[in-house]
């Protein structure tokens, strides 16, 4: 009897253990399978799911795919590698591809590839030491102050020159002491105007130079090219200043004025191009950080969903955010192509047109980024009020990839 009781007890114990593990197993599979299964990315990419593609990527993509009828067919047409690439695209990019017909969408996917990126270089094109950054910042401030000083001196000199010139009208063919004094004043003030105008241009160029020196978002080659060009222009202007300082006659002064004017006309659009390049490089950095933030928010809402938090509205806002970042990126790329082309342009008129167009695109890119940022602030607010937290920057060993698009 005792034996029977013991066996009975053991059987019951085993049954209870089996039931526990069954329930656990069921729960575990639910957790992994939430909204992934319907259109089958998980079936399509078994290696990816268990491999290096984070689950939140699958969830994000699945949300987009669920809303698009033809998506299933498209996904089935992708190789495993292409599916992996697709999962790394931003929401807006995924939507963009799914909005075209399957054949063209599959063709478009062939242009993309995954590139392993260095985490420390995610938002930079080069590394600049902290000391150099600090120095460049100080030099920029100093150049700004010097520019204002030259501007004020130029304005004063211009006012004084205009006044002397007005009074000189009455001195036509008059050789009085007063008239000679006025002539000397006009000459001195005109020299001051020339020197200060050249100094204004020099300090303006210095400001651009310092921004280039401290731009980690600009590549070394472009940076060196700009700095070399600026240094050459500064040398020419310094020579023009010497010419003005040593000019003794009215004609020599007028000649020095023309020299500065010619230099300015020659470099003006080139200088506008450099300034536009610095601004566009900064836009690039912000776009990159925004794209990265989109991924972190996707991770956040995947986690919130696991906790049973309704993320439908936040999800819609992330779509809007992604679309605005994508719009900004498109404009940035167009502007970048234009500025790259402008550096090779020799014709002044063409250069001016290209710079004008590039600046317009940079402004549009910036406006889209501002709008994206406004939506982002709302998203963060919504996440917090729903009890979520933005996923922190992961310090994992996991490799970071970015999708690169092969140019036509």
């Amino acid at each position: 009897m005792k034996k029977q009781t013991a066996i009975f007890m053991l059987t019951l114990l085993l049954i209870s253990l089996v039931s526990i593990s069954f329930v656990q197993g069921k729960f575990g599979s639910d957790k992994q399978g939430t909204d992934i299964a319907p259109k089958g990315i998980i079936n399509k990419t078994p290696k990816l799911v268990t491999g290096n593609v984070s689950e939140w990527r699958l969830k994000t993509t699945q949300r987009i795919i669920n809303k698009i009828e033809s998506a299933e067919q498209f996904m089935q047409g992708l190789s495993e590698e292409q599916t992996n690439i697709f999962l790394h695209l931003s929401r807006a990019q995924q939507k963009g591809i799914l909005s075209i017909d399957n054949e063209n969408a599959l063709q478009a996917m062939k242009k993309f590839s995954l590139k392993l990126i260095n985490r420390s270089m995610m938002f930079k094109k080069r590394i600049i030491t902290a000391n150099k950054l600090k120095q460049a910042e100080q030099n920029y401030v100093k150049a700004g102050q010097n520019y204002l000083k030259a501007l004020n001196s130029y304005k004063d000199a211009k006012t004084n020159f205009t006044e002397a010139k007005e009074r000189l009208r009455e001195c036509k063919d008059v050789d009085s002491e007063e008239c000679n004094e006025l002539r000397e004043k006009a000459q001195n003030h005109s020299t001051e105007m020339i020197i200060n105008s050249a100094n204004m241009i020099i300090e303006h160029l210095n400001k651009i130079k310092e921004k280039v020196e401290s731009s980690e978002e600009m590549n070394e080659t472009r940076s060196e090219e700009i700095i070399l060009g600026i240094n050459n222009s500064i040398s020419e202007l310094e020579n023009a200043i010497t010419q003005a300082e040593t000019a003794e006659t009215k004609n020599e002064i007028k000649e020095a004025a023309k020299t500065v004017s010619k230099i300015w006309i020659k470099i003006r659009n080139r200088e506008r191009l450099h300034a536009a390049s610095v601004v566009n490089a900064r836009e690039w950095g912000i776009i990159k950080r925004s794209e990265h933030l989109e991924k972190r928010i996707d991770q956040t809402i995947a986690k919130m969903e696991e906790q049973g938090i309704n993320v439908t509205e936040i999800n819609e806002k992330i779509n809007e955010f992604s679309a605005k970042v994508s719009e900004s990126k498109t404009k940035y790329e167009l502007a970048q192509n234009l500025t790259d082309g402008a550096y090779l342009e020799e014709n002044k008129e063409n250069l001016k047109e290209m710079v004008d167009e590039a600046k317009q695109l940079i402004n549009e890119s910036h406006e889209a980024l501002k709008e994206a940022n406004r939506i982002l602030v709302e998203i963060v607010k919504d996440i917090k009020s729903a009890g979520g937290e933005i996923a922190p920057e992961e310090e994992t060993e996991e490799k970071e990839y970015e999708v690169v698009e092969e140019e036509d």
Partner: protein
Amino acid sequence: MMENKIIVMLILTILTVFFIAGCAKTKIEPTTPTQPTTPAQPTPEDTGDETVNGLSGDISDIEVMGDDLDTQDLDNLSQDLNDLDW
């Protein structure tokens, strides 16, 4: 004989309790992983805000820099210099 039956009944009751408790415990489990994250909440919250604030700040900075590198003051320079005569 009666004693044995009572023992068996008692054991059965205990095992049934374990069985039910086992199931119940598993159902609560999904909420368990959220518990360790609770004390660490301030860090992600700060990081999130900093990132967003940092982006907002940089977007404003670009506008300031764009204006600062604008050449409005220099627009009429050439004309002034070319007209320099008295």
